[in-house]
C-alpha cells in the first residue's frame, strides 16, 4: 500500500535537476517576442501614443489599446454579485489608464532585446487625472472617481444578516471590538506569468501555452474574448512554477498574445519580468475590518456585527469579488456563534486589482475572528485557550450548519487545540512570560476552519496492452506534488507499483473539461474523479481475470501486479496479462468490449479542514524586532495520502503566513505609485526567517471515499493571526493594540510611541 506513506515525489528529479520545461524554456521556429508598455500614472487620460521612434530594426508591429479594442477583449469576470458594478476591462487601456502598470501598448519584434529597447522609445502623452489609493478616502463623497461612468467608487455593498443580532447585543454582558487592516500582498510565484501562442491558418487552430492554474477555463476565456469557437483553441500548460491564486485569472496578456499570433501569423511569446509581476499580477488581501462581539456572562460569544471594506483595486479581475464575500461568510470560524450582522463593501481604487491569493478570503475571515477572540480574552482577562474551548462547535454537532449558510462536514476543534497546547507546552510558555526579563514574550492562538472543494474535475484513465497506466487529470498541479499522490491512489486501487503510472495534466485537447488547481481542492476532487474512472477499469479487469481463473469476481484481489484468487498464492493472472487480453477480442470473455479506458467525473461536497496553531514570540525591547520562538501547527486535513506532501504544504503555507504577519507589504504612495517593485523592497521571508515548525495532525475523515479534505491553503489561513496575536500579547501591558500588519519593528515603535511607552 502506498496511501498513507511518505512516498518521495515523482516530480522532483526533473524539477530539482533543472530538466523541467517552463514556458520561458519554449522556443518555436519563427517565434517573435512581445513587450508591454505600461502606464506610469495611477489615473490619466491618454492623449497621444507616438510609436514612430520605436519602429527600430527588428520591430514587427506595435499596437495600442485603440488598435485592439474591436478585436480583443474585454476580459472575463467570473464572479459578479448581484447589483455590483463591473467596468468594462479591455486588455490594453483605451484612452484612460486606471493604475500604474496597466498595459497601454504592445510591441512585437524579432528578439527580446529589441522589443525592450523599443519600449523606451514609445512616447505616451498623458493628461493626469486625480487618483485615489486609500479605500476609506475612495468611499468619501468628494473622492475622485476611478470610473467616471459610475456615481461612486463602490463596486458592491452587501449586507449579511442572520439571527437576532440586536437583541443579543442588548442582552450581552460585554462587548469587545477590534479593528484590523490586512495589508496588500503580492503572491510572488517563483515563476512569473508567461504566454506563448501559435496559430495554424490551415487548420484554423490556435495553440496557447500559458503558465496558468486553470487551462480549461483559460480556453473558454480566450475564445470568448477573441470571439472564436472554443473548439479552435487549445491551451497547454508547461511546467508551472507556482501560482498561489495569481494564475487563475484572465489577464490582458492571455488575450493579446494569442491575438498577435493570429494577426501576424507567427508564434509570439511574452514572459513577465519580476517588476511587472509585482506591479501587474493580481494582489491579495487588502481589507479593513471593524468587528464587534457580544459576549454573555458565560463567556460565550453570541453575535458578531461589523463591516469589512475591501480595496479591490481598479478593476474586477476574474474572481475579485469572491474574496471579501468569502471572508465574511467564514467569519464565525470554529465557533457556535448563531447571529451575524455584516456589511461588506468592495471599493475601487487606482491600484492593481486584488484577486485570489493562497486562501482567498478565508485567511482574512479567520484572521479577523481569531484576532477578535484573542482580543476578547485579553480584554476580559481570560485565558484565550479557555475562551475558545467555551465557544467551539462541539464535536458531536457535525454536520453543523453555520448562520452564514455553510454546512461543516466534520471536525474536532477541541481535540486539535488540546494537542497544540500540549505540544507548545502552554503552561511552560505562560511561565516564560513572567520569568524572561530581557525580552517581551507573547503567545498567540489561532483555531480556524477552511472551506474547500468548489468545482468539479474530470479524469481519463487508460491502461495500455503492455500494462502501462496513463492518468489524465483536469487538475493542473504546479508544485504541490499531486502526480505523486494520484499515482499512490491509483497504484493501491489497481494493486500495481507506482512506476507503472504516468500522470498527465494541462492539455485541453486530451483532457475533459475541469476546474484546474486551486482552493486546496486538487487531491480530493481530482483524486475522486480519477478513482471513478479507475473503478470502472478495475471492474473490467476483474471480470477478465475471473473468466481466466474460473473464479467469481468477489473472490479476487489485486495485489503486487497480479490478480489473485483470495487466500491463494498460486492462483493468479498478472496485471499485464489481463491488460493484453483487454486488447485481444478473441480472448475477451463474452459481452465485454475491447480496450481498457475510462473517463471519470466528480463534483465534491464541500469539505472543511481545520487546525489549531500557536505561536510564541519574543520582542526586542529596544528595536521591537520580533523573533518566532516556537510555532506549533496541528492541522486536520482529513485522511492523509502522503504525510510528506502534507507537511510540505503546511510548511510552505506557513512561510507565506509569517511573511504576512511580519515582513510582506505591497505599498503604494499616495499618488498611486507602487513602491514595492523588487524583492529588495517586497520582503519575502527567507530560510533565515523561518523557525523550525513543530507539526502534528489530527485526522477527522471527510465524507468521501478518499476521506480527504484539502491542505493546500490551510496553514496560510491559520498562522498569520497566531503570530500577530502573540506580538500583541507580548506588548499588551504597554497598551499596544495592533491594527496594521506586517508587525515590523518600525511599526511597533510607532504603535508604542503613540501610546507614550
Amino acid at each position, binding site marked *: 500500500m502506498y496511501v498513507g506513506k511518505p512516498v518521495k515525489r515523482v516530480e522532483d528529479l526533473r524539477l530539482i535537476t533543472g530538466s523541467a520545461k517552463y514556458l520561458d524554456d519554449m522556443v518555436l521556429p519563427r517565434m517573435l517576442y512581445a513587450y508591454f508598455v505600461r502606464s506610469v500614472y495611477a489615473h490619466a487620460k491618454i492623449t497621444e501614443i507616438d510609436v514612430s521612434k520605436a519602429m527600430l530594426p527588428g520591430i514587427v508591429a506595435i499596437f495600442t489599446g485603440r488598435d485592439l479594442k474591436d478585436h480583443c477583449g474585454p476580459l472575463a469576470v467570473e464572479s459578479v454579485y448581484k447589483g455590483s458594478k463591473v467596468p468594462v476591462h479591455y486588455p490594453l487601456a483605451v484612452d484612460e489608464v486606471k493604475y500604474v502598470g496597466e498595459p497601454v501598448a504592445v510591441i512585437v519584434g524579432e528578439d*527580446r*532585446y529589441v522589443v*525592450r*529597447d523599443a519600449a*523606451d522609445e514609445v512616447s505616451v502623452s498623458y493628461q493626469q487625472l486625480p487618483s485615489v489609493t486609500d479605500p476609506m478616502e475612495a468611499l468619501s463623497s468628494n473622492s475622485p472617481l476611478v470610473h467616471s461612468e459610475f456615481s461612486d467608487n463602490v463596486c458592491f455593498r452587501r449586507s449579511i444578516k442572520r439571527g437576532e443580532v440586536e437583541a443579543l447585543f442588548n442582552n450581552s454582558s460585554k462587548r469587545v471590538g477590534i479593528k484590523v487592516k490586512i495589508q496588500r500582498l503580492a503572491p510572488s510565484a517563483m515563476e512569473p506569468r508567461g504566454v506563448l501562442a501559435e496559430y495554424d491558418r490551415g487548420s484554423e487552430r490556435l495553440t496557447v501555452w500559458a503558465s496558468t492554474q486553470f487551462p480549461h477555463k483559460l480556453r473558454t476565456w480566450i475564445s470568448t474574448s477573441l470571439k472564436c469557437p472554443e473548439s479552435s483553441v487549445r491551451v497547454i500548460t508547461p511546467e508551472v512554477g507556482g501560482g498561489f491564486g495569481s494564475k487563475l485569472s484572465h489577464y490582458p496578456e492571455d488575450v493579446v498574445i494569442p491575438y498577435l499570433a493570429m494577426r501576424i501569423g507567427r508564434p509570439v511569446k511574452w514572459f513577465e*519580468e*519580476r*517588476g511587472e509581476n509585482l506591479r501587474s499580477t493580481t494582489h491579495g488581501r487588502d481589507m479593513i475590518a471593524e468587528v464587534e462581539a457580544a459576549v454573555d456572562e458565560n463567556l460565550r460569544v453570541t453575535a458578531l456585527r461589523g463591516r469589512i471594506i475591501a480595496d479591490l483595486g481598479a478593476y474586477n479581475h476574474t474572481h475579485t469579488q469572491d474574496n471579501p464575500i468569502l471572508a465574511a461568510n467564514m467569519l464565525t470560524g470554529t465557533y457556535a456563534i448563531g447571529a451575524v450582522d455584516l456589511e461588506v463593501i468592495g471599493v475601487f481604487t487606482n491600484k492593481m486589482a486584488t484577486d485570489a491569493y493562497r486562501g482567498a478570503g478565508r485567511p482574512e475571515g479567520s484572521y479577523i475572528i481569531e484576532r477578535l477572540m484573542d482580543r476578547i480574552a485579553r480584554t476580559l482577562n481570560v485565558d484565550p485557550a479557555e475562551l475558545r474551548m467555551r465557544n467551539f462547535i462541539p464535536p458531536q454537532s457535525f454536520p453543523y450548519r453555520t448562520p452564514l449558510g455553510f454546512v461543516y462536514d466534520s471536525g474536532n476543534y477541541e481535540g486539535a487545540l488540546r494537542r497544540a497546547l500540549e505540544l507548545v507546552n502552554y503552561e511552560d510558555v505562560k511561565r516564560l512570560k513572567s520569568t524572561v526579563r530581557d525580552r517581551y514574550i507573547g503567545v498567540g492562538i489561532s483555531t480556524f476552519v477552511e472551506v474547500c472543494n468548489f468545482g468539479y474535475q474530470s479524469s481519463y484513465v487508460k491502461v495500455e496492452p503492455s500494462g502501462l497506466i496513463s492518468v489524465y487529470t483536469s487538475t493542473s498541479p504546479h508544485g504541490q506534488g499531486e502526480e505523486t499522490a494520484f499515482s499512490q491512489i491509483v497504484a493501491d486501487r489497481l494493486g500495481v507499483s507506482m512506476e507503472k503510472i504516468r500522470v498527465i495534466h494541462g492539455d485541453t485537447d486530451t483532457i475533459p473539461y475541469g476546474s484546474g488547481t486551486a482552493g486546496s481542492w486538487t487531491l480530493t476532487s481530482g483524486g475522486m474523479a480519477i478513482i471513478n474512472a479507475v473503478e470502472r477499469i478495475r471492474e473490467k479487469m476483474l471480470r477478465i481475470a475471473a473468466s481466466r481463473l474460473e473464479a467469481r469476481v468477489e473472490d479476487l484481489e489485486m495485489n503486487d501486479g497480479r490478480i489473485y484468487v483470495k487466500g491463494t498464492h498460486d492462483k493468479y493472472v498478472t496485471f499485464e496479462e489481463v491488460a493484453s487480453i483487454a486488447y485481444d477480442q478473441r480472448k475477451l470473455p463474452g459481452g465485454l468490449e475491447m480496450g481498457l479506458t475510462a473517463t471519470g467525473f466528480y463534483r465534491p461536497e464541500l469539505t472543511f479542514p481545520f487546525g489549531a496553531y500557536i505561536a510564541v514570540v519574543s520582542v526586542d525591547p*529596544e*528595536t521591537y524586532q520580533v523573533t518566532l520562538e516556537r510555532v506549533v501547527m496541528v492541522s486536520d486535513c482529513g485522511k492523509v495520502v502522503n504525510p510528506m506532501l502534507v507537511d510540505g504544504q503546511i510548511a510552505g503555507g506557513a512561510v507565506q503566513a509569517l511573511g504576512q504577519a511580519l*515582513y510582506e507589504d505591497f*505599498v503604494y504612495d499616495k499618488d498611486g505609485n507602487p*513602491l*514595492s517593485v*523588487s524583492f*529588495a*523592497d517586497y*520582503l519575502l*521571508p*527567507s*530560510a*533565515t*526567517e523561518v523557525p523550525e515548525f513543530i507539526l502534528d495532525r489530527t485526522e477527522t475523515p471527510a465524507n468521501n471515499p478518499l476521506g480527504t479534505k484539502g491542505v493546500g491553503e490551510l496553514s496560510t489561513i491559520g498562522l498569520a493571526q497566531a503570530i500577530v496575536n502573540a506580538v500583541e500579547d507580548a506588548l499588551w501591558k504597554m497598551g499596544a493594540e495592533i491594527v496594521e500588519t506586517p508587525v*515590523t*519593528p*518600525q511599526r511597533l*515603535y*510607532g504603535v508604542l*510611541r503613540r501610546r507614550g511607552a
Partner: protein
Amino acid sequence: MIPKSFEYFEPKTLSEVVGFLKKHKENAKVLAGGHSLIPMMKLRLAAPQYIINLEPLRKSLSYIKVGGKSIRIGALVRHAEIEHSQILKRELPILPAAAEWIGDMQVRNMGTIGGSVAHSDPASDWPVVMLSLNAVFTLYSGKKRKVPASKFFIGPFTTAIKPYEVLTEIEIPRLPKRHGWSWKKFERKAGDFATVNVATLILPKDGHIGSASIAVGSVHYRPYRVTEGERLLKGAKPDLELVERVAESAASMAEPTSDLRGSAEYKRHVTKVFVKRSLIEAIERANLNLR
C-alpha cells in the same frame, strides 16, 4: 530585466583599462563582481556604452597581504574570501565579521570589496568598516594616488575616484592584537541592506580606553565617524552612562530619510540602540570593565 546594449572589453593590462577610461570617460564603466552594476543596468538605471571587465586582471588585483604596518587588500578580493580568510580572522576580525553580513552567499561569492567601496551605496557595509579603520585607497590612472577614507566617501554613489581612475588596493593600518571590535548591522531580513550599520574599534590602555573609533552608516548621505563620542571615550574608564552619551551623540549626527525601512525618527532611535550595543561589545572584547 534587459539592459541597454553595450560593448564589452576584456583588457590585458591595467594601463589598457586606464587608456580606455581616459578615452571614453563617463560612457565607460569597469566591471568587478557586477553585483551592483549589473542590477542597475538591468533596471536601466545605468546604461554605460562600454563595459570593461576587470576579471582578466584578477591575478594582480586579488590578494590579502599582511606585513609591516599595514594590511593590503587587492580591489578584486571577493566578500567571501574576506569572510573565510584565516589570517584576517586573527589579524582584523571585524573584516570577516562584516563580510558575513553582506547580502547572501551568491552576492558574497561574486561581489568585491573594491566594487563595493567604489559604488559607495550609502546603505552598504564596507564603506562604514573602511572609515572606522582609517583605510587608504590606492587609485591608478597611469600613476598612483592615495586617498584616505575620510576624504574618499563623498556622498551617495560618489567617491574620490575620477572617471579615468581604477581603484587597485585598500591599505589598512594594522591594529595591536589586543583590540576590541564590533560590527553591528540591523536589517529587516537576512540578505537585506542595512537600516543602520555600526563599526566600533577600541584600543585599550592600562584599563582605560586608549582610543576609540566608531563609524555609522545607512542613516546619513554618507557614512560618518562619531567624532564627539570618540573624544568622550578617549582615556575614559567606560561606564553605561558614558556609553549612552556616545550613542546619543551618534544618533544626533544622523540625518536619515523616511522610507520603507522606517521613519527618520525610528532610524535615529535604532542608530542609538546599535551604537550602544556595538560599543558595549567592543569594550567587552577589549577586556575592559564596563561599570
